[in-house]
């Protein structure tokens, strides 16, 4: 007899993850090129009389950056879990429905055509042209893929994936064109964007991004039961009383909003959406009522830790966090797969 899988009870695991996130947050606030004590962090947060550089580092740099890392990590983790459940494929990720490539095209277009095309817009929302454009492009790309994948009110997953591949290729070709016409400085800037970074995080980014991600995080528990049913197949989910087409629409919209918002301020950060849900499934099981919040928490923990590491390893310079995730996540994921192969 095959032993019962070694699953941890859900509630304590969620509490543990929350604790980890808080510990990670404290670590992130304390460490960096400028190490701070807990007391200094406290002063930086609440004491208007504290030293200007401490105030700046804690309140204007690390705090928004920490919150953004949490939100972006949660958005990536939960979107990975949602899409993997919907597509019934453990390898699905937001890139499949064009969110990343759309955002990349938008961001790169702003970097390269920047002053010429977007100058007027930048006057109204200084410094926010890039994230706004990336966000809008992510949503548009997803909408196009969704329209192609839907016929007469029905959405076919296979068609959706094929449309995704084609539209992604077109968007990446657009990125290629932009890369080709970019000058030296723009080339460097766009390369950095594709490696992902939270170094630029400020409160305005947070204001742009947090409503969408928080909305998705709040709405996510409502989909858990239907997603569990979908694990048995779309037909069975229908038989059990779940409107699967509505579910698909909701998930795609939620992922486009959350990941589009995340990517628009952080650049491309891979692997969180893959690793976080996968780890949770291994330890806590596949029930989406646990999987979704746990993936969000774990994604947040992973990104907070990776971002802290990114600040430290080449200090006072910074390492791109997207690279960091891929460098750590890739081998880790491989190790997981290798360990499971003999079964």
């Amino acid at each position, binding site marked *: 007899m095959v032993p019962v899988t070694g699953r941890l009870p859900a509630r304590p695991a969620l509490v543990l993850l929350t604790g980890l996130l808080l510990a990670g947050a404290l670590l992130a606030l304390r460490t*960096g*090129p*400028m190490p701070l004590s807990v007391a200094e962090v406290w002063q930086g947060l609440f004491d208007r009389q504290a030293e*200007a*550089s401490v105030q*700046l*580092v804690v309140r*204007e*740099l*690390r705090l928004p950056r920490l919150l953004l890392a949490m939100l972006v990590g949660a958005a990536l983790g939960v979107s990975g879990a949602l899409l993997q459940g919907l597509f019934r494929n453990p390898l699905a990720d937001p890139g499949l429905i064009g969110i990343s490539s759309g955002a990349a095209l938008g961001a790169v277009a702003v970097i390269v055509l920047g002053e010429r095309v977007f100058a007027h817009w930048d006057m109204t929302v200084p*410094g926010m042209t890039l994230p706004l454009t990336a966000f809008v492009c992510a949503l548009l790309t997803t909408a196009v893929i969704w329209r192609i994948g839907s016929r007469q009110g029905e959405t076919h997953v296979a068609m959706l994936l094929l449309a995704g591949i084609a539209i992604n290729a077109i968007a990446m070709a657009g990125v290629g064109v932009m890369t080709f016409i970019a*000058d*030296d*400085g723009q*080339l*460097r*800037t766009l390369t*950095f964007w594709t490696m992902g*970074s939270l*170094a*630029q995080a*400020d409160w305005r980014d947070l204001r742009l991004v947090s409503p969408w991600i928080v909305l998705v995080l709040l709405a996510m528990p409502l989909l858990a039961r239907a997603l569990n049913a979908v694990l048995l197949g779309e037909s069975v989910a229908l038989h059990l009383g779940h409107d699967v087409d509505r579910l698909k629409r909701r998930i795609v919209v939620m992922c486009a909003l959350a990941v589009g918002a995340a990517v628009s301020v952080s650049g491309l950060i891979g692997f969180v959406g893959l690793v976080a849900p996968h780890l949770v499934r291994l330890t806590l099981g596949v029930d989406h009522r646990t999987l979704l919040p746990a993936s969000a928490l774990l994604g947040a923990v992973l990104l907070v830790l990776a971002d802290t590491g990114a*600040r430290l390893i*080449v*200090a*006072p*310079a*910074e390492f791109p966090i997207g690279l960091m995730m891929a460098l750590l996540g890739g081998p880790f994921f491989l190790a997981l797969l290798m360990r499971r192969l003999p079964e």
Partner: protein
Amino acid sequence: MIRLMVALSVLLLALPVSAQQRLVVAGGAVTEMVYALGAEAQLVAVDDTSLWPPEARALPRVGYVRDLPVEGIVSLRPDKVLVAEGEAGPPRTLRQLERVTEVVPISAALSPAGVIARARQVAAETGQVEAGDALVASLEAAFERIQARLPLADPPKVLCLLSAGAHGVRLAGQDTKAQALLDSLGLPNAVTGQRGYRPLSSEALLALAPDMIIVAETRPGEFQPEDWPALQMTPAGRDGRILVADSMLLLGFGPRLPDAMAQVLDVASGQGGVAWSR
């Protein structure tokens, strides 16, 4: 009262030390200027493009000039951050830095006059008034010596190449620092009607038929002439009018601009250059 006196004298004694300001520089040409002024003791960190003079490489680095880290710089507690205008960024980082330290944009220079203005500005910001006057004087003298050799009777048509690591070899069109260098010597650019840097092809090399080629390398030995057999078939290749030099020297528009101009002029007037037909 005595206590106050002691405190005051301590303060006075401390003044020369505190006058030694802590400086972070983003921009290779600005770093060169700081060294040329003998103010290198003020430097606490520089960016990745600050590779000259070789001593600068030993300083702590804050990353690429266009991708400066706020916290990394703040942690160094600089009194002043000198940033090359138009290069250092991103703008958001600079705005945040301004809240805790003085961020001084050093004006972009694309001509001998610009370099002199830059020298004056850096001298003022580092408090090196005398050294600044001396540097300006020597720069002016050097530019005058070069001006005396101009204009050339038969100015060659020059192709400028930038050999930059993974980006490969690209040719320089209008709106580039290479164009500015040529302009300062009154030399025509072989590339016309193109803006910025464009990938180089062997066919383009032949079609442009430059009389002279300048190769700016981001690292010594990066440009491999063997990769470009078409080079030898251009007028420049046949006459050996090829100059290969460091990109920060040629295109940095720092205190070494007179050297760069002199080297280009030597090759342009047929007094030097490298024949690559080995």
